[in-house]
């Protein structure tokens, strides 16, 4: 392997300069960067709110925030992290960057719609920032009625409109991915030759398109009830507050799969590369993504066991909630088996994957506790739920996002991040995470309710542990921000395929993709993750020869 010492003369990052070349770009790779910058800002905004929450909970009386300020903080944390970070995180950054590269296309199917979706996102984000600055929002990210429609004095109407607008960004991204995956795959790339990230993003896009409109309708109804006094959800006006919960969770439960499914896709990519093995049970892993998307639509009622809903409806939702855990279990077993007889290295992305496996498993298994009607009567709306959710979303989705960002960073920037710092921060994150969120499981079973700004003294010790963990976690999040920014200018120039990974994005684009991705449309002749069973040097020689003759290198076949 001979790493190139300089980047190619012309690539997508230096194709044009000036703000217009970025803000009016239709290049999927540049739009990915626009998203990356925006959601990173939102992540640190939401993280700041979380940090204040943890500081407040250091003492039972809560020394630093007034109650209504605390309520605004957890609302801001939830709204920003869910709608402005987790939902767009992997699809809009890595997905935007990788979907055309992985299918072997020059761009997404609708490049202009892709840009519009970012503008919609930014309008929504600025709008929400304005709401926060002009008095805040304190309904919780769930906007439960009739509190949100008739009692809250904060900016609910504005916030619902913000969420409504934002939904279109999500829908348009999903639409773009579905059309691209259906229509723009390179010759030879059959459905079952697609990388598993594409399967995961395809399933995610289906949910985005089908579920987001329901959220939009719900938000409009909340706004209508609030400013026009039409009775929809408030029983004082003749509405039904439980109806709101059905409509809200019909979107918001599938939405948690919007957040975690792309992460699962990233894990499949990274684990196969760092074990140098085909993903074990490829078809099962691929189809399980679709199963999750389908069954995910049928379980929303498990958020409502104690809402006054019929217990027989609850039974049905409970049973299906157990079933929806099966595809996730199948994925976990297959990832484990992928490591078997592999060649496992411990580079930063792989450390994140190992962290993901452990934390996601805890998150998934505790989900079974909550899916059971018997236990949920006790655990509902306690810190057990908070811990479960954060194990899946932070331990799962965010770990996967970090794995993905580190993994594809060389391809996105042409430079390597500093490996030692990467490994260190991955381990700091893991330790900080466990210390922050594990005590919350115990707090939950002890009975500490969520959204409490003050609490009874016997919960203090565990809360102190959790706050201590959150400071470690904060260090773990700031470190990558610093060294990634540093590496943009000072990072080592990356070779074309530093991990010796498989897939069109590594094998057919050169060190950093050109403006139009592929000089020649690639042809796919093998399955995904067809890691070589012969010496790498030999393959490299063949490729170099291919490049010298000016033709696209044949993709190495596996034998």
């Amino acid at each position, binding site marked *: 392997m001979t790493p190139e010492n300089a980047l190619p003369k012309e690539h997508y990052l230096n194709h044009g300069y000036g703000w217009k070349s970025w803000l009016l770009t239709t290049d999927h790779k540049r739009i990915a960067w626009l998203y990356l910058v925006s959601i990173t800002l939102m992540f640190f905004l939401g993280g700041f709110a979380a940090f204040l929450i943890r500081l407040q909970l250091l003492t039972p009386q809560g020394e630093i925030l007034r109650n209504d300020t605390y309520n605004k903080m957890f609302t801001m944390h939830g709204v920003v992290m869910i709608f402005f970070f987790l939902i767009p995180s992997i699809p809009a950054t890595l997905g935007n960057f990788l979907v055309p590269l992985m299918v072997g296309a020059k761009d997404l199917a609708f490049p202009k719609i892709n840009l519009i979706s970012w503008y919609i996102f930014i309008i929504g984000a600025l709008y929400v920032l304005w709401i926060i600055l002009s008095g805040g929002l304190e309904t919780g990210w769930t906007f439960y009625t009739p509190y949100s429609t008739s009692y809250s004095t904060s900016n609910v109407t504005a916030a619902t409109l913000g969420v409504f607008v934002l939904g279109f960004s999500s829908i348009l991204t999903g639409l773009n991915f579905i059309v691209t995956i259906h229509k723009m795959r390179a010759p030879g790339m059959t459905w079952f030759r697609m990388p598993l990230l594409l399967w995961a993003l395809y399933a995610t896009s289906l949910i985005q398109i089908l579920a987001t409109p329901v959220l939009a309708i719900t938000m409009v109804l909340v706004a209508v009830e609030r400013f026009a006094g039409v009775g929809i959800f408030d029983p004082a006006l003749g509405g039904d507050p439980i109806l709101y919960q059905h409509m809200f969770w019909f979107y918001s439960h599938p939405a948690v799969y919007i957040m975690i499914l792309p992460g699962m896709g990233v894990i499949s990519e990274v684990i196969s590369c760092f074990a140098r093995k085909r993903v074990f049970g490829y078809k099962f892993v691929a189809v399980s993504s679709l199963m999750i998307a389908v069954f995910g639509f049928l379980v929303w009622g498990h958020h409502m066991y104690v809402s006054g809903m019929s217990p027989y409806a609850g039974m049905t939702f409970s049973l299906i909630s157990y079933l929806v855990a*099966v595809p996730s279990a199948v994925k976990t077993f297959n990832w484990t088996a992928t490591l078997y007889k*592999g060649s496992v290295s411990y580079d930063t992305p792989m450390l994140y994957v190992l962290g993901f496996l452990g934390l996601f498993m805890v998150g998934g298994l505790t989900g079974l506790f909550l899916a059971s009607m018997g236990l949920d009567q006790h655990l*509902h709306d306690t810190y057990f739920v908070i811990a479960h959710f954060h194990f899946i979303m932070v331990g799962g989705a965010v770990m996967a996002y970090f794995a993905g960002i580190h993994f594809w960073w060389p391809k996105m920037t042409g430079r390597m991040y500093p490996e030692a710092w990467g490994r260190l921060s991955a381990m700091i994150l893991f330790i900080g995470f466990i210390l922050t969120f594990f005590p919350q499981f115990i707090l939950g079973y002890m009975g500490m309710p969520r959204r409490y700004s003050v609490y009874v003294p016997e919960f203090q010790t565990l809360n102190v542990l959790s706050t201590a963990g959150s400071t470690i976690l904060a260090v773990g999040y700031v470190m990558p921000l610093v060294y990634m920014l540093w590496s943009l200018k000072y990072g080592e120039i990356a070779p074309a395929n530093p991990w010796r990974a498989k897939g069109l994005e590594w094998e057919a684009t050169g060190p950093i993709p050109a403006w139009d991705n592929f000089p020649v449309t690639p042809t796919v002749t093998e399955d995904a993750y067809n890691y070589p069973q012969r010496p790498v040097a030999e393959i490299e020689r063949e490729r170099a020869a291919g490049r010298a003759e000016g033709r696209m290198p044949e993709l190495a076949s596996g034998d």
Partner: protein
Amino acid sequence: MIFVPQLFPEQASTGAVWIDYFYFFMLALCGGVGLTVTVFITLFAVKYRRRYDDEIPPESHESKWLEWGWTIFPFVAFVPVFFFSTAVYFKNATPPANAMEIYVTGRQWMWKFQHLDGQREINTLHVPVGKPIKLVMSSEDVIHSFFVPAFRIHMDVVPKKTTTTWFEATKAGEYHLFCSQYCGTEHANMIGTVYVMEPADYEKWLAQASFGGMALRGQNLFNKLACNSCHTGDAQARAPYLSNIYGKTIQTDAGEWVTVDENYIRESIYKPNAKIAAGYAGIMPTYEGQLSEEELQTLIVYLKAIGSGVQQAPPISNPQGVQPQPAGKNPDGTLPFKPDSAKPGTAGTEPAKQPEPAKPAPGQPAPTNPAPAKTGK
């Protein structure tokens, strides 16, 4: 400050026992599965670590048998787990028939309780040990949730709707009561204390209060609102007679069958034209906005009382209605829990020997009431 964290909540109700059993079962099951997978991941990651840069692992051999095995295994394993969990839920779902009712109102940001005997409390709840307690709950404003960790019970308290839950305390003591559904600024302060008392102490506590019984307050209100000018029970009555109607299934003018329960009574008072009893005209005015949630609860208790054999009150002319009675006397004969002796009221109200002008003896028709006429069926 506590330095050793408590890791397990107090267990103080009959229902808590099974929930804890199920919790430990799940910890063992999920812990076992999780630990096994973690051991495999660690083992593989260490044993098959990359030893030199150009290492090429051998080809993988996929096993259909293994693949289908671990797909089907969780399906099969989840079935008993589901049945166990659902059984725990249903075991705890239905209150025993002899449960004592307490009426609960949630509002921003306090808990209010009315005992059938007449006591009212705010943010404290006194109950006897070893007696099933059924909580009949509703909210005056937003959704709250009634959560007592030591009893492992949890139920949303919803505006304009009645929800119920129950518990049987097993240990005397003081337990936290939390609102667990976010309800606004002071959500975190919407907490109270449940005092579980030995029966003797509880009787002492009961006897201290001196309001009239809850059903009596309901009857008072029933008369004050002149409900019995239409619900008279004679042949020309413009509305159904309400004795013996609670718990029955009646037919509406739309031909549907409805059971007369708490939510139907609530609906009939607030939205009288929603489900009209067959054979009557929809002439009743709505009382929406005129009754507080607690007043409505007293009406429900009254209708329940006259639903169990006690005759409906005749119209009375006394504008003051029924005089308050000392607690503990169980004047309506409706309480499942009957203290043998009750001290007379101490708060300076009427003595115990008040006559009961509006309360005919059970089973004995009042002079102004003919035999029960049509009940809307």
